[in-house]
């Protein structure tokens, strides 16, 4: 019996030291890491986005009384930048990204903010509601990937729901109570970024090396580009999508 206890102690000590070493070594690497920046542009004029008739829920229509709501499939900036494009590294084999920021998927004025939420596999995110009307969150993953679908309501005042996804997938998410509400969970492996209103993005924490950067847009499709990242420097990758 005693020997077994000793073994357990030694084993846990080894595991602890190993973990510590891993964490420390990451810290060391971080200094030498580069990043990938760039812009995503939309070729041609932005497609017309239909207006949303929210008359079903007086709360929602009131919230948009002065600023009519539109679908957010294509959100293009003034300079032709395309927002809501997820950029990530194809075939990432490195360690999981330690995330400091808390990812939040907010339901505000009967729309999803952000429209596309990118995340690493296993990274937890919060779904919260800022509305005074009940929503439900119904993501629809492909059951073959191993991601388990769920469907949960959030009445006004409910605490945030914390969730994560196991496998890489672009998961559409909907509110059945407000059928126009739709968004995406973009679950990727490794470092990622989402383009902003002007189409700009920055993928941080990329160790030096050769990579294939993939840009994904919910309607326009995907594009890839090869980049080389040098230690401590920023590589550049620009994409141009055509509206479909």
């Amino acid at each position, binding site marked *: 019996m005693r020997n077994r206890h000793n073994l357990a102690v030694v084993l846990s000590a080894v595991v602890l030291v190993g973990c510590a070493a891993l964490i420390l070594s990451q810290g060391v690497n971080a200094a030498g890491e580069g990043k990938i920046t760039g812009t995503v542009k939309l070729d041609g004029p932005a497609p017309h986005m239909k207006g949303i008739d929210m008359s079903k829920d007086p709360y929602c229509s009131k919230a948009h009384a002065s600023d009519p709501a539109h679908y957010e499939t294509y959100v293009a900036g003034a300079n032709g930048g395309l927002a809501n494009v997820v950029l990530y590294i194809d075939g990432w084999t490195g360690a999981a990204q330690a995330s400091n920021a808390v990812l939040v998927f907010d339901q505000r004025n009967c729309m999803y903010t952000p429209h596309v939420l990118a995340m690493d596999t296993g990274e937890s995110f919060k779904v919260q509601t800022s509305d005074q009307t009940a929503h*439900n969150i119904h993501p629809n993953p492909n059951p073959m990937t191993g991601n388990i679908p769920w*469907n*949960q309501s*959030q009445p006004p*005042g*409910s*605490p945030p729901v914390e969730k994560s996804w196991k496998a890489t997938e672009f998961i559409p998410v*909907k509110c059945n109570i407000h059928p126009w509400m739709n968004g995406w969970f973009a679950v990727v492996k490794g470092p990622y970024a989402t383009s902003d209103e002007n189409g700009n993005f920055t993928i941080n924490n990329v160790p030096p090396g050769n990579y294939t950067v993939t840009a994904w847009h919910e309607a326009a499709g995907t594009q890839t580009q090869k980049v080389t990242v040098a230690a401590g420097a920023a590589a550049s990758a620009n994409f141009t999508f055509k509206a479909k």
Partner: protein
Amino acid sequence: MHDMSTHAVPHGAPTSFIRKHVFSIDHKVIGKQYYALALLAALIGMVLSWIMRLHLGYGSLAIPGLHLLSKNGAPGDVMTPEYYLQLMTMHGTIMVFFVLTTAPFAAFGNFFLPIQTGAEDMPFPHFNMMSFWVTFTAFLVLVASFFTGTGPTLGGWTQYAPLSAIGDVGGPGEGLGVVLWAASIAIFCIGQLLGSLNFITTTLDMRCKGMSLMRLPLTAWAWFITSIMGLTAFAVLMPACLLLILDHVAGTSFFRPSNAVINDQVLPGSGGSTLLWQHLFWFFGHPEVYIAIVPGLGIVSHVLITNMRRPMLSHRVLIYSMGALALLSYMVYGHHMFVSGMNPVSSLAFSFPTLVITIPSTIVVLIWLGSLYGSRLRINSASLFALGFISMFISGGVSGFFLAQPSIDIMLHATYFVVGHFHLVMGVAAMFGIFAGTYFWFPKMTGRMMNETLGKVHFWMSFVGAYCIFMPFHYLGIAGNVRRYQAFTDDYLIPLIPVHKFITIAALFTGFAQLIFVYNLIHSRFWGKVAPNDNPWEGTSLEWSTATPPPHNNFGDKMPVVYHDPYQYSVEGASTDYVMQTSTEQLKNTDEEK
């Protein structure tokens, strides 16, 4: 060759604790077990209704500790819409199946039917034991759905397809929750089938000498008629549940229509009929309503007669009326489906028998009232509840006039009017029947009396409280308040919220009264006044002629022999004001039933 006995093989009194109290084949123990199950189920069902009512009256109110019940259903104690519907479904299922069917029918029926017929036991005591344990298993399976990740099903106790058939994509609990629900109900059906077999054979084949069918007390008749309904109604529900389970686990699509789209995805399923479920369900569902209420009619008549000190104006008419109710109950089920898309001609075909069913119900009420006239009424907890039952039965019954007519049903279908109607007539009335039976038979079942004062307090709070809850339901329904809503966000419903607040307060008040009953029940069981004799209410039927509590074989060494009608009260020329069925006294001036 016809040397077969009509009796069960007599079994000796068990000695071990397990055979005596757990796996007992004694119908009296099984009756008590059913009662305990119904009590447990009723408590659960009542707590669920409290939570729902609190939410409906005070929607934004967080109910402290609710998150402990369900992490997903009530995060931060705020009730989600799906959790409301889940509680509602479980409240309905538990109350209808495990309280209203088990308590008046299986619990009292098991205990008293063999005694009232003069039998030593039921003919198939092992079936009887199985019947209880199968029902108990069904209850466990149902309750287990609370503990699945997504919780119990939210489809309502009617479990309309295709919502119940499409799986989890339809909402939380619509996958595993529905499978557990359907499995529970299918198992329950088996239990009731076994029980019904025993009840019918007991009534037909196990009567003691002199006990002709017409000499059976009204309770025995009520249980007999109920068991005939149960025999066929549950037998139809069972395959419906099995087909529903197949839709979930075997990929069939009996109830899954083609091309259903949820979340922009076309669901698998091909050509299934959604109306089929409604037909199968209501073919069971309407007799089920009478399965819940007919034993109440019997119990109330029995209790009233003893306390009125006179027989009913007509024994036979009451029996025929109950029989007519049972028969008609199979022909009216379509009145649940007036706006379901069924052929409008068949709506009329279902409407007329539904209206006709008011005739036997009216006859029953009139016979009660007519018998009350000129009686010598004794007031005690049991008779108060029996009289309360009559009042509730009338109130719940008259609203049936509206719902029986398809044209008015257009306005009232699926509103609180329906909820008020069936809660009064099959909920409160049936519960009052159970209470009347409990206060009346408690001394025979346990050998102790229940506390009368507490009983009366319980009655007053329940009677006034129940009216305060369920009468306003009708007004809400007339104003168009839709049922099964977890919040009233529609403009025209907002003015009705104060009524809901009033109902919530009344519900909590009435619910509290039921706790008094439970206390009274438990306290009296162990510390109550010992019953003064074997016949504290001066009754005439066989249960009062045996020891208290009855011995293992019901009548000890001597099998009873019956000489009289069940209710010989206030017979002129008799030595006492009641003549027991077993009394050998010769009576003049009575035209005895044969």
